């Protein structure tokens, strides 16, 4: 079969990362549930991580992988704070979608 002649080059990784990023972006825009929006943001962050690692391999530069560490730390911190906020909001109201959180309207 001709599948044996295919090699997974770096381009495939970039395309995968782009697709993951787009799915995450569309998810943030269209989903109303706050937790799902969070998961989509995480998806976007991971797509970015994948891009960095692919380029690090292509350009033979470790700096790409170091940035991944930074991004993972930032993502972890953001999740912690964000989930804490959501917990507090859910204590107040039973159900809250993103559209209901409009108190900062102005």
């Amino acid at each position, binding site marked *: 079969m001709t599948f044996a002649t295919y090699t997974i080059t770096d381009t495939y990784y970039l395309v995968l990362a782009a697709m993951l990023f787009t799915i995450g*972006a569309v998810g*943030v*825009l269209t989903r*109303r549930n706050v937790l799902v929006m969070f998961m989509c943001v995480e998806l976007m962050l991971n797509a970015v991580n994948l891009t960095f690692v692919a380029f690090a391999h292509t350009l033979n530069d470790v700096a790409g992988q170091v940035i991944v560490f930074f991004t993972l730390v930032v993502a972890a911190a953001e999740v912690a704070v964000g989930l804490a906020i959501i917990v507090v909001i859910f204590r107040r109201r039973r159900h809250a979608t*993103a*559209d209901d*959180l*409009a*108190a*900062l*309207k*102005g």
Partner: protein
Amino acid sequence: MNSRDVLDLIWIVPVLPLLGSAVLLLFGRRLGEPRAGWLASALMVAAFAMSCWMLGALLGLPADGRLEVHRLFTWLPAGSFSVNVGTQADPLSVIWILLVTGVGSLIHIYSLGYMRGDRLYTRFFAYLNLFAAMMLILVLADNFLLTFLGWEGVGLASYLLISFWYERTSAAVAGKKAFITNRVGDVGFLIAMFLMISTYGTLSYTATGPAAKVIGSGVATAIGLLLFVGAMGKSAQIPLHVWLTDAMEGPTPVSALIHAATMVTAGVFLMCRSHVFLEAGSGTSTVIAWVGAATALLAGLVAVTQPDIKRVLAYSTISQLGYMFLAIGVHAYVAAVFMVLCHAFYKGCLFLGAGSVIHGNAENQDLRIMGAFKKFMPFTAAFMTVAWLAIAGLPPFAGFWSKDDILVNAFGSHSYGVWAVGTVAAIVTGIYMTRLILLTFYGNSRSGAEITVLPVVAGGSDDGHDHPDHTHHADHGDHGFDPDYLPTVQFGETPRESRLHGHAPHESPVVMLFPLGILALLAAVGGLLNLPIGNLDFLGRFLEPVFSSVHETTVSTGTQLTVEAISVVCALAGVLVAFRFYRRGLAAPGHDPIVDGLAPATKVAGHAFYLDEGIAKLVDGPGRAGASWLDRVFDQKIIDGAVNGTGWLFQWKARVLSKAEDGFVRRYALAIILGTTAILLFLLLWAGR
């Protein structure tokens, strides 16, 4: 201490009465009646003594070095333009401070007697001192802006003093009228100063003097004319003269000091100070000369018809001021200054004498019910007679020399038109002044007074006569504060009732007669200041450094004597005409021979050519319509519209922009992603080209 250091102290002269005013305003009530007056008068006499010292110091300097400018501090530092507070001591200002402090002291002393018993005694002296301080600042200033400060200050003091008995409606209205009319003139002064700043960049006298000659005549003409507008307001030239006659509502010492001797001469002073502009401009002097001449004649004609003693003197002042401006218009500045001095002497004497007469006549100012007062007030009569001879222009009294100086200069500089008008005005002057003196002191007695009562001089009005004295003071008090009482007798009014009730009018106390006497003496011998004979023109030579750039008019002795002869003949003619009609007084109080005989011309003149009514119609009609148009269209629609519109504009914008902040989180996320995509596209496709 050399002369220049002494002259640097000249700033003390205005500060003395200024301090007096401040003390009297704050502590006057505590000082009480006679002491407040003594303090004010003492400060004025001290200022006079100081002015004499300054004169001595100035004379100690060589004739071409008599100018000492002393800066006290910088008032308005504004980049390259700055204005100082400083004094300029030169012959012109020293003459004026001597005049203001000298005549001012005499009038302060006179007021000690005149205002005795008045409820607002201390306030009077506070205002009088304030006026003197402001007038002194006006003349001692070294730049136009400081002069303007004094200018406005004397306007304020005039307003305060005219409406001194403010509870009376007519007095309050007259004060307002004076201030507002002055203000109209001040617009001219201000615009002239703006022009000076924009053209020369400075307002000081010593700088604008040489500068005026350099820069073109168009600007100089404009500045000269605008300054003249200011002078017209302050010195009551037609058409801004309407305030001076109503200003007679104030106490008579005020009329004497402010409206005869000093404040109204501020306009003349300004013209002298800015003579460079008048010289450099074209046509300015002609305008000034004609306005002066017209004022002199027209005001004189009105004076002939008036039944109120103070009104006659008011119109006379306007007429004499016209003469001074006539002099300025023919470049005879020294003659104008000479006239200022002589006029202060004889007009001051006349006004103080009129005050004496009014006080003696139980506050009644109607000439038609006076008569034969010489028997009751011999000293007042004598002094006023001397002043009358002076103002009519009969030699050897002061008025002859001063008026003649002007007319000779007018003739000699080929301005025959103004000379002719001035000469006719001299005839009219003779007529109205003689009429006043005859109706008051001579002729028949129409006041119902007993002629056998001997006059009382020493000790004054309360010498055992407590009944007339009591009513006299009550009258004075009442009519000071009764809102509807009108002391001024209008033209065409029926003759007033005499309030003497058969008592004789009393002579005034020595404290009032003393200044009268001094002024009468000065009116008699004042001519010695500037005789046109050889070396005796002291004033002319003293003022030479100030007016050195002016082209002197020289007349041959023959022409001079001819013109002088014509003037004497005209003055005598006027006197004799009045004698013919008024020698025996009036046959009946309601029948005035000249007024009734020459009606309707005298009716027009009696109403001052309806100028007052004309101005009132102008302001009420077009003025009011213009103001209401401005209110409706400009103020409400344009200005309010602009302000409200700006607010509305911002509110609308805010409404639009606030839609971007609706708290809708997903919209924010979409905005972020779209924005990022746009930037990426931009970077990929267009940047880096």
